[in-house]
């Protein structure tokens, strides 16, 4: 991983600026620029911030400068949130000052008619004349929580994560902060690419491929412009890091009546399906899936194959998991004789030693979370394990009370028990050479599951989502192998 290559990338200073200027922030709280400056400060950005404002002496308590020329230093990055008509001149002034990187949040360019297209061309030419690289226009910016830098308009309050995201919709950067936090996830770096007048989604992928905090790359795509380059870049990256993409616009509306059969059967959705497979990119069919796949791909080791064991203590959820695995194209192998023999001493006679392995109850309740998943993961017929998780606090407390504990002590012991057990199982999951995930109909409101999320263990909110996420692991391995075989 070359730090030099990373630092030389045009997006490096956009995601890791040591100092910034912002044009368009004021003391008026309704202004977009004001929101952006607020959230930059809220995350505790450590570099110098130079607001430019034609009238105000201070902006949000920071000394403001009347014009770009007045700045006391040349900042690494400019954030432009000005009215459309002022943007090109601002870019020119920044260039003359020596600024070489910008985020253009302002809209009214290529997305809005003939005049906008002309203006966008002028913006690009002006930037190019000063060797300025920028993202946007018409974007919501970039976020790099590892650098305590959040130049979007919604606050980032989560811990830094390992999902690198490039999105053709700003919403799937900013509006996902809280969503990801539900599962203990976060972004390593996120780019809203906007109109891609200068830097585009391909360059974002290449940057994220080098970014050491990024373990998996997520893409939200509406339309790729440099198609051949996109495929080639993906094929370079996939051997090192998985890429997951959601393509919107996957409707048949794009199909046009052609002269040939081929013309009439080709629609963009079909073509993108082929493009993703060709590039080794895993396609997600919803935004939830996009992040589920990123979650498991960043947390789990690569599976050797697609054979899954399901562990449950409840028949229904186990049966649904089996159905979901089958639909996802995963294989449910029978347990090996060796594993059956080893399991026998822990199980009651009511248990089923098929797959799903339905334990009903165990002689020692702790076995469910400890020795049994270990035994199952040692079965050489299986490549992955998915485990049904419940562990409601009330049940744990009743068990502790039944052993004679006073209510207060029982409460304390319940929490301790949950924290200890979740830490233990997450630690095991992280050291296990095979993918091991949980599934549940409970989520963060359940302390046990919340703790597992915090410890980085995927516990997906339904068996169907867990099965699809395990499929994404097997698919990544398949695509990576395909690309490696083609290269050799």
């Amino acid at each position, binding site marked *: 991983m070359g730090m030099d290559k990373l630092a030389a990338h045009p997006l490096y200073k956009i995601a890791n600026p040591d100092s910034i200027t912002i044009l368009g922030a004021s003391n008026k709280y309704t202004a977009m620029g004001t929101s952006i400056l607020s959230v930059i400060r809220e995350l505790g950005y450590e570099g110098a911030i130079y607001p430019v404002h034609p009238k105000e002496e201070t902006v949000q308590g920071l000394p403001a400068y009347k014009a770009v020329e007045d700045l006391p230093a040349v900042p690494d990055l400019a954030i432009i949130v000005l009215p459309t008509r002022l943007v090109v001149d601002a870019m020119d002034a920044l260039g003359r000052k020596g600024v070489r990187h910008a985020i253009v949040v302002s809209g009214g360019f290529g997305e809005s008619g003939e005049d906008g297209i002309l203006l966008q061309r002028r913006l690009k030419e002006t930037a190019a004349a000063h060797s300025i690289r920028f993202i946007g226009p018409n974007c919501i910016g970039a976020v790099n929580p590892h650098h305590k830098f959040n130049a979007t308009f919604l606050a980032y309050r989560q811990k830094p994560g390992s999902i690198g995201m490039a999105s053709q919709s700003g919403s799937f950067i900013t509006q996902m902060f809280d969503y990801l936090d539900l599962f203990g996830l976060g972004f390593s770096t996120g780019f809203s690419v906007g109109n891609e007048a200068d830097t585009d989604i391909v360059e974002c992928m290449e940057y994220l491929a080098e970014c050491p905090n990024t373990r998996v790359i997520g893409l939200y795509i509406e339309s790729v412009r440099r198609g051949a380059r996109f495929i080639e870049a993906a094929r370079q990256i996939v051997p090192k890091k998985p890429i997951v993409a959601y393509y919107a616009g996957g409707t048949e509306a794009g199909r046009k009546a*052609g*002269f*040939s059969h081929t013309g009439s059967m080709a629609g963009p959705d*079909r073509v993108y399906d082929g493009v993703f497979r060709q590039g080794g990119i895993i396609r997600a069919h919803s935004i939830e899936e996009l992040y589920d796949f990123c979650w498991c791909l960043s947390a789990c080791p690569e599976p050797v194959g697609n054979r899954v064991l399901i562990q449950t203590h409840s028949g229904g959820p186990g049966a649904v998991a089996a159905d979901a695995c089958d639909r996802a194209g995963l294989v449910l192998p029978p347990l090996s004789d060796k594993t059956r023999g080893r399991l026998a001493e822990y199980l009651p006679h009511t248990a089923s030693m098929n797959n799903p392995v339905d334990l009903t109850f165990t002689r020692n309740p702790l076995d469910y979370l400890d020795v049994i998943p270990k035994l199952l993961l040692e079965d050489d017929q299986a490549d992955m394990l998915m485990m049904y998780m419940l562990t409601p606090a009330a049940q744990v407390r009743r068990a502790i009370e039944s052993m004679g504990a006073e209510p207060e002590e029982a409460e304390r012991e319940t929490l301790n028990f949950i924290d200890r057990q979740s830490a233990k199982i997450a630690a095991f999951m992280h050291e296990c050479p095979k993918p091991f995930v949980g599934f549940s109909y409970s989520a963060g409101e359940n302390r046990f599951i919340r703790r597992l999320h915090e410890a980085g263990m995927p516990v997906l909110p339904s068996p169907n989502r867990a099965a699809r996420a395990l499929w994404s692991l097997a698919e990544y391995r398949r695509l990576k192998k395909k690309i490696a075989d083609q290269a050799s």
Partner: protein
Amino acid sequence: MEIVENALSAGRSTLTEYEAKRLLSGYGVPVTKERLAASPQEAAEAADAIGFPVAVKGYGAALLHKTEVGAVHLGVPDAKSVAAVYEGMAKRIGSGLEGVVISEMISGRRELVMGLHREPGFGPCVMIGVGGVLTELIDDTAFRVAPFDDSEAADMAMDLRAKAIFGAFRGEPAVDMGALSKSLSAIGKIGMNHPEISEIDVNPVIITPKGAIVAVDALVVLKGGG
């Protein structure tokens, strides 16, 4: 390829079926054996060389909708019948008939479609699908962006829902995947080398009882056509 240049300079928007198959064949796509003949005598000799029965199709740059004007005769059994078919066509069509194409008859129970179109942002894209007259109804297709190699082409074929079509089928062996993959990547090469071609349809590509693939009909649309 001069086939394409000649058609363009003649102001045509498509290649004839015969030209389209010559183009495909030149890139290594297996096509039906066929010969052009400009008289009943030549037609009979060509049919003799190819082997009976044959298909006799009217040929002419201006000859569209061949079936409707009675310019397609399938399963013609011998030399005498070939000559008679030619004479009958000449009488019906007149000066629009420049000759006939004599083709071998290919039969097989499995049919594929291959094709090419240009997708904005990506350029030439190659398609494979389950083919024949029900192609659109079955709607089982996969795409790749050219250029790509044979192994990517094989991977593409495996994207089809009906990929079992490539395996052994009712006593017939599995499909020659090497030839299939080469044909798909070759269609991609045609798209790369000929920006003036906007669309290609190869339908049907018949899988013979021995597992070989043969392009039986083909359409090449030129820029400005369609």
